[in-house]
């Protein structure tokens, strides 16, 4: 992993210790078994807020610690290992990024401190069908006397059940597919014009479909520029992708650790199964893929922190690489554990389900492979 500075090391150790005590995969299981519709426990979220995690990206003047994306990634990776459920990614990273990148002074002042202290959960509502397609945004925002009226649907909004506010990508001009004509709005989740449907998904995370029925918002709700929100949306999404990639890396590396442990202890045919060369080499290849994925993820987070020119390409790269490794690793977690891996009593299924869900989030490998080609100019 990246050479950490002292602050990062302390934060990482703190995260590991806290997650061990408070958010291990057993806690995720208990949450799932309870049927909790939000997909996380309020106490968990409060504890994270107390530790300052939702404020890691938030500038100090707004109550955050401004430690950057690489640092945020360390926490997401640790949470990914134990599948610890919370809206940290959705609000602390994606929501915060939207405000930091697109908010005006008033919006930042009103919103960022409350993101940082966890009292508001701000999430991004972007997709409108079963597939990630930011170019295809069609949710209409018509101009009215006092501002805009929003009508249309948003699907699979991450932590959409718990969100207090939504960053909504809407169309103020042109047609679905046009690059221009997109505007972002920051809207209050409690408004009358929004109805939510909570989803029951295989990975037990808190997604929701939203329906906007002529929701009226003022000009003050606009985040960034009217009609020119496409670039802002891309920038937010890229940060979201790198964040998801960090979580994926954590989930996959834990699956690797569980598999390695099993290879060293499970006996078949009179020896531990890791002594079978076919499995030993498979483990070596998975390890290789893990180390490569780590470089991609840390590279993307560092590129964001450095405001590098290749942030879009690096973020697509990280999502692809983490995705490919997590796919293979979550499948091998089951395969190498054999029958026990198929039982709900064992945790492997959680990792497999989560892997599939993270793969679809903010664009799958195919989406990012094609995007990478486009970004490279061919």
């Amino acid at each position, binding site marked *: 992993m990246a050479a950490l500075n002292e602050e990062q090391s302390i934060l990482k150790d703190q995260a590991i210790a806290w997650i061990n005590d408070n958010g291990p995969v057993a806690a995720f299981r208990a949450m799932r078994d309870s049927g909790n519709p939000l997909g996380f426990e309020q106490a968990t979220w409060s504890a994270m807020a107390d530790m300052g995690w939702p404020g890691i990206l938030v500038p100090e003047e707004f109550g955050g610690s401004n430690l950057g994306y690489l640092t945020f990634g360390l926490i997401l990776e640790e949470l990914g290992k134990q599948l610890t459920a919370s809206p940290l990614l959705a609000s602390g990273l994606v929501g915060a990024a939207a405000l930091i990148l697109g908010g005006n002074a008033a919006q930042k002042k009103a919103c960022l401190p409350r993101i940082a202290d966890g009292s508001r959960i701000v999430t991004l509502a972007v997709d409108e069908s079963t597939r990630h397609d930011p170019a295809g945004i069609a949710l209409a925002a018509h101009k009215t006397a006092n501002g805009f009226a929003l009508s249309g649907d948003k699907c699979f909004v991450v932590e959409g059940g718990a969100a207090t506010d939504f960053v909504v990508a809407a169309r103020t001009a042109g047609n679905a597919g046009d690059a221009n004509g997109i505007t972002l709005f920051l809207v209050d989740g409690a408004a009358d014009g929004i109805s939510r449907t909570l989803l*029951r998904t295989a990975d037990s995370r808190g997604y929701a479909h939203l329906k906007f029925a002529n929701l009226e918002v003022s000009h003050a709700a606009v985040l960034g520029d009217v009609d020119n929100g496409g670039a802002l949306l891309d920038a937010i999404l890229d940060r979201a992708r790198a964040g998801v990639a960090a979580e994926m890396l954590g989930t996959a590396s834990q699956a690797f650790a569980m598999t390695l442990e099993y290879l060293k202890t499970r006996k*078949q*045919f009179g020896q531990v199964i890791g002594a079978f060369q076919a499995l030993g080499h498979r483990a070596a290849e998975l390890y290789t893929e893990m180390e490569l994925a780590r470089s991609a993820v840390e590279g993307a987070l560092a590129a964001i922190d450095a405001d590098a020119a290749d942030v879009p390409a690096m973020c697509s790269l990280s999502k692809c690489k983490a995705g490919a490794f997590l796919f293979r690793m979550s499948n091998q977690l089951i395969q190498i554990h054999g*029958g026990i891996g*198929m039982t709900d009593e064992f945790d492997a299924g959680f990792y497999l389900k989560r892997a599939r869900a993270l793969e679809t989030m903010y664009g799958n490998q195919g989406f990012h492979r094609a995007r990478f080609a486009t970004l490279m100019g061919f």
Partner: protein
Amino acid sequence: MSEANAKLEQFRGEARAWLAANFPRSLVGKAAVYMTYDLDVPMEGDALAWRTALGEKGWGTPTWPTEYGGGGLSQMEARVLQEEMHAIGAFNPIPILAGMGVTMVGPTVLEYGTEDQKQRHLPPIARGEVRWCLGYSEPNAGSDLASLATKAVDKGDYWEINGQKIWTSGADISQWCGALVRTDVNVGKRDGISFLMFPMDQPGVRTRPIKLIAGASPFCETFFDNARADKKDLLGKLNDGWSVGKRLLQHERQSQTGGAPMGGGGGSLQELAKKYVGLDSAGKLRDEDLRLRLAQHLMDAKTHSLTLARVAAESRGNAKVTAAASILKNSATHVAQARAELTLEIMGGNGLGWEGESFNDEEINAVRAWLSGKAMSIYGGSFEIQNNIISKNILGLPETTQKG
């Protein structure tokens, strides 16, 4: 040739007439209700009448000998019977009702059983009245079945069985069990194993259903605590259960190579993709990367089907199974698992549906089937075991890394 054909056509007429007289029209379109492995559907009314008629005629197990409750038909006649049933929407629920009885236990009893065993066990299976489960795997004997530890001790009148089995499909609703047990602890791992048959409804047997990653399952853990098997229910020779068990597994493996589409995606994958993803103005799938991976998968699937057909053609009039058959298990698994993954990818976010109104049945079934299908590379000879078999038995490479 034409005389044989004429005889076959005569049989077709008889079958058609018998089916017309006996298959209740009320059951047309109900095949899916009765042809599921997951549920213990009660047999009542017309369904019970149909099962009884089929059982009495022996056509639930059409190729079994008539003296043991079978239909005594040739393979060709059995195929004709199937065609005629299909033509009028009839179906044969008996293989399902019998659990592992028709597909696995029956053929093996026919081969290894004593006359008494055949008389006692086969007719109830053929009538669909007795369901069988199989006790093979144990918590510490999965792929390495030879290290099984469930013991059976000779108590004079009976065998006393102690130990635990896992993955006993349908154990909680079966009346009989066939199990591999250790009858001699002093010899090598594959020696000293015997195949016993015993009723499940006895004090020494306890079952616990296993919940799987896809949800409820037909599988159980089964515990034996001084359970009993009659001395006359040893199948095959004492301490020769390994060969009996292997034969049974061959039947299982044969039933897994069809590469049948997994649930939730029985239709054409390209139609599903068109529906969820759509085509662009040039008639290409809107997701260019998915388009090419889907094409690759369809080629893989077609190639597997071609191989199934080739193996069948090469085996015709050829007692020895062709070497190509050895690849079918892994190939079928690869195709089925890739199909399940692509199905979810095509469905996008809806391919995460677990329950609730936001997802339709096809989506939820696809997610469950995707998870269930992960077992294909584990059970019935894991991916790795199959590669060991190809490497050793087909290619003649030495086996150094597996002892025992």
